């Protein structure tokens, strides 16, 4: 039982990371119907920025987090402006291939400048190194931090999407881009804003993972990126609460598979879940079925 609860705790920590990344996927897909393959690399970028803030600049965790989020935002918006915007009216396959290209460019660009090796985050000290022991469970300060920051960011996101003008614009554009444009919404700005929010969340996830696992490398974004996308599909792509739930489900499943079965099968099972969802209910847990108009 204790082991079970411990796995749940670990799963929720990992799930928080996936949820944060999945939100960016789901928002971008909702608004321009693109699987932004480069999103996982924005997350990796956030982890590297955090690394620099904490080692070279010797900053604290929170300022590093903010800087990482800002830098990731800039990268995300730049990707959108440079690579995706010229293809607004291109075929879906063309945009998807571009996304793969951008992803490779960021990965190998980082590898070129940073070298391929693993970098390690500085060891935690003081308050950050605390561990809580509750009835045999071990909860680290990093895990607490991950969950708290994730919850804060999600609440903030809900507020932005539901209550602000840009949030309304985002929802309008994702429902019907042409109609939104006719209603005087600046579609380009709205899309950029969506990328900005998604990238900020991914950047936050990046630094949190750095704190949690300590080591980062240029290809670290590939797998979590794909899994976060699976989380988004699981919850119903385009649906924000769906991405959160999906993220936690995938995180918990993954931890359980590594804990009770064989960690080698971790990735395979997550992909098997994806294929299963796509076959059984392609619109996801919270999604509605949409038919192509004849």
């Amino acid at each position: 039982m204790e082991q079970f609860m411990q796995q749940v705790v670990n799963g929720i920590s990992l799930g928080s990371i996936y949820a944060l990344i999945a939100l960016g996927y789901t928002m971008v897909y909702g608004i321009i119907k693109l699987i932004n393959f480069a999103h996982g690399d924005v997350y990796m970028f956030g982890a590297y920025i955090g690394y620099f803030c904490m080692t070279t600049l010797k900053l604290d965790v929170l300022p590093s987090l903010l800087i990482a989020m800002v830098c990731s935002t800039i990268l995300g918006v730049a990707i959108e402006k440079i690579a995706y915007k010229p293809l607004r009216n291109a075929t879906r396959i063309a945009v998807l291939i571009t996304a793969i290209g951008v992803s490779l460019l960021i990965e190998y660009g980082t590898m070129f400048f940073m070298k391929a090796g693993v970098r390690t985050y500085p060891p935690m000290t003081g308050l950050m190194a605390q561990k809580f022991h509750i009835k045999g469970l071990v909860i680290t300060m990093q895990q607490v931090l991950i969950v708290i920051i994730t919850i804060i960011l999600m609440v903030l996101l809900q507020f932005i999407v539901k209550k602000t003008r840009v949030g309304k614009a985002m929802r309008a554009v994702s429902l019907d881009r042409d109609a939104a444009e006719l209603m005087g919404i600046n579609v380009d700005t709205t899309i950029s804003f969506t990328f900005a929010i998604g990238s900020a969340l991914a950047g936050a996830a990046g630094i949190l993972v750095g704190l949690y696992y300590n080591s980062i490398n240029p290809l670290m974004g590939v797998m979590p990126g794909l899994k976060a996308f699976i989380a988004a599909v699981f919850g119903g792509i385009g649906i924000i609460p769906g991405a959160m739930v999906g993220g936690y489900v995938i995180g918990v499943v993954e931890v359980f598979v590594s804990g009770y079965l064989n960690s080698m099968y971790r990735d395979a099972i997550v992909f098997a879940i994806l294929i299963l969802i796509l076959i059984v209910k392609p619109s996801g847990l919270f999604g509605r079925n949409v038919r192509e108009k004849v």
Partner: protein
Amino acid sequence: MRNRLKTLINPNIIIRIISLALAFTVVQVLISVNVINSYLQITLATICINIILAVSLNLITGFTGQFSLGHAGFMSIGAYTCAIITMRYGTLWSFILGVFLGALLAALVGFLVGLPTLRLQGDYLAIATLGMSEIIRVVFVNLDVITNGAAGLSDIPQFVNWIWLFVFTAGVVWVIANFLNSSHGRACISIREDEIASSAMGINTTRYKVMAFTFGAFCAGIAGAMYSSYFYVIKPDLFGFLKSIDILVIVVFGGLGSITGSVLAAVLLAIMSTFLQAFSEIRMILYAVLLVAIMIFRPQGLMGSKEITIGMFNKLGNMFSSKKEV
């Protein structure tokens, strides 16, 4: 009447034979006078294998319009099957058996995966096929008894030489080209053009999508078998997501829906990588930039959906001769 015959019997058939014979002779001569030395022969093998992979992926993605990101997975099935069989028996016949068994197994997996997933549209299919190839990879890592896990197999008997490569490459391209120039092939192409109209015209779209997918997987299996028998070392990581992207780059660069485009792109990109061998990171960066640049500035690739034909050379010739007159 002449016109009718021209459309029916592929007018390029003689040209095809001549150009294949020419290509074979030129390369053979270059090998025998050692212009293509043993180092460049590796590039040659890469070109042949990539041609098989690219043309078969083009059949799925460029002609039938089904976006697959899992082609390397099918390749790995062919590679492992052939390697395991030849390592056990070590005869030439076992190699031939291995190639076909590998291709059949790849096709079987393609069929089983394609049947449920090909109902999905565009990017969902892409992710599903990507997931499938990752699952195949993980299975190979974990079947250590016969695949030796993540370390992979080495000392696979080397049967494949330039002649085998040529025969299989030419054969695959020939058969795929024939298929596309038949009523069954046109049924596939109509799905890319408009799936709804296609089913309204009596075409069982699921059947033809699965058929193209299975056929493509079969050919990828052949390519994998060639790979394992030529390079005699394989491991699961060689057939990951990046390999699938590699193949996709060739197809997109050559033009979705152009067989000759895929062949041309396979040659050009292999030459480019040979020059950049020492700088693998720069090579990947260049690949990435190339991919994005093609999509932004020339989304149809080198050839679009056109094929290189003799008529094209005539036109080109006329252009030059008319310029001279001026």
